[in-house]
């Protein structure tokens, strides 16, 4: 079976030789091609090339079309990204500086005509041609209730959400949701077959469950109106076990990329056969773990999740400081213990 077929079997609870194994190697791409991060992220071809080279070297199941999360902010007018030699690029220019800017903030009529879209489309075109028939190609979409963080900063957004005028808050979320309603179909059309829907404001780590139910959920339903068959619910590694029921009922999402801080036994019990439980290794600890410690943790996670199928083993954002031998150790263990 191909990795894409293995993923499909896991989602649907059908027989497969092993569980799917996702490894999110994003910032490692620049090092792979021996380019500066700024140069590397400037062209979609570079990102695709690095993804394919790392796929060949490590043998995991998925590739990514994502350059960095700030790309979405650039599509919406951000003029500056702060690149780092050893980690994730930051948004350095907030499009919305004061609440007054929200009224003038506009979504492009067609985001696919935006210059920053081109590099993503170029990347996806290569990935689709090379591995689209066999491998999951992941694309990243930030939920409308979280996207304002990239536009105005987390603290200003939190202030507006919790203590600002509700109509202004929702005006901004509506515009962000309009953007997502363009973005998801465009990513699918370009070749993405897994949409990782990042929704930290859908995690009770960020806001109370009542607020998620009454405020976030309706916006998420709007964001995902074009379908959820390929959508993965993800809260940016924030835990969300006690929201899963709500997400299944109200969003009909069937894949949950949990947090290393979630109790996977509990996740598996809640999701059961209703969807795919994605159990994550705490990859920040992998920076300092030995190969043996890494293997032991992979074994522990897979032993919890593998029985009853409907399970995927995955990583978080894989910091660049993780030693290469630990990446190999993790994946060797995942393939070994993940066999049925």
């Amino acid at each position: 079976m191909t990795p894409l077929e293995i993923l499909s079997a896991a989602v649907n609870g059908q027989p497969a030789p092993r569980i799917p194994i996702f490894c999110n190697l994003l910032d490692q791409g620049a090092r792979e091609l021996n380019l500066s991060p700024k140069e590397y992220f400037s062209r979609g071809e570079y990102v695709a090339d690095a993804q394919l080279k790392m796929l060949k070297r490590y043998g995991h199941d998925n590739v990514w079309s994502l350059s960095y999360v700030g790309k979405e902010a650039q599509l919406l007018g951000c003029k500056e990204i702060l690149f780092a030699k050893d980690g994730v690029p930051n948004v350095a220019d907030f499009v919305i500086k004061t609440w007054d800017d929200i009224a003038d903030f506009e979504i492009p009529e067609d985001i696919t005509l935006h210059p920053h879209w081109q590099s993503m489309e170029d990347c996806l075109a290569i990935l689709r041609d090379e591995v689209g028939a066999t491998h999951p190609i992941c694309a990243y979409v930030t939920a409308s209730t979280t996207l304002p963080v990239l536009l105005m900063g987390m603290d200003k957004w939190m202030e507006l959400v919790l203590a600002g005028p509700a109509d202004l808050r929702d005006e901004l979320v509506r515009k962000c949701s309009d953007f997502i309603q363009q973005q998801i179909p465009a990513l699918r059309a370009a070749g993405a077959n897994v949409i990782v829907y990042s929704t930290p404001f859908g995690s009770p780590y960020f806001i109370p469950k009542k607020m998620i139910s009454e405020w976030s959920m309706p916006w998420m339903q709007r964001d995902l109106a074009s379908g959820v068959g390929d959508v993965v619910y993800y809260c940016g590694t924030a835990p969300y076990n006690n929201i899963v029921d709500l997400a299944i009922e109200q969003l009909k999402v069937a894949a949950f990329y949990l947090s290393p801080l979630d109790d996977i036994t509990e996740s598996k019990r809640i999701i059961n056969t209703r969807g795919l439980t994605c159990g994550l290794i705490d990859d920040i600890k992998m920076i300092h773990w030995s190969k043996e410690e890494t293997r032991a943790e992979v074994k522990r996670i897979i032993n919890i999740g593998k029985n009853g199928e409907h399970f995927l083993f995955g990583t978080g954002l894989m910091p660049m400081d993780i030693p290469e031998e630990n990446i190999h150790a993790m994946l060797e263990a995942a393939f070994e213990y993940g066999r049925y």
Partner: protein
Amino acid sequence: MFETYIKDYNEAVFDIDKETALEVVESALQQGITPEQVVFNIIIPSIEQMMALIEKDPDTNLAQHFMTAQIAAGITETMLTKFSTPPEVIGRVIIGTAYGDLHSLGKRIVIGCLKSMMVDVVDLGVNVKAEDFVDAAVEQDAQVIAISSMMVHTATGEDGSLRVRALLNERNLENQIKLVVGGAPYRFDHELYTKAGADNWAADGVTAAKIISQLILEVKAS
């Protein structure tokens, strides 16, 4: 008498209800409670109760932490202008985000709580160089440097808290200035703070204020 105000105030904060929290304080003032008593007998004990609650209840959320800090800081700032004599601060902290890091939410929560607990806070902002942290701590006679990092590379990178530690060591300042770190990466690896060269860490902004206050008192006592 204060117990009822503390209970009502904390219930409002926990429900992220700023308006009701302010009404509790206004009601206290109308009943003859002084601005000094509002801060020392209601706001500070309320924050301390919130700290204890957060330790016991891992399901408290970032929204509650943020509002705890923002409401308390706002009230304290207003009350301070009405004090009959200027209050005595317990110490001073230099705070900022690590070099290369532009995320300011956690820092803002810590600052709000510290100000309400009568700690003088010097905020260097975001993307702060290690040298600037140490220079400011020396110039301002601070007992603690607090560094917030949202990303792994800014938490453990050579230009962040590790560089601050090296500078404190080079300048023989390690006994008089303590180094505290916080932010998302530390929540995933509880030993990461030692690899970042820090004396201590906190899992959230409210708890960070408690740890920083304790370190200030330790430095002043030594």
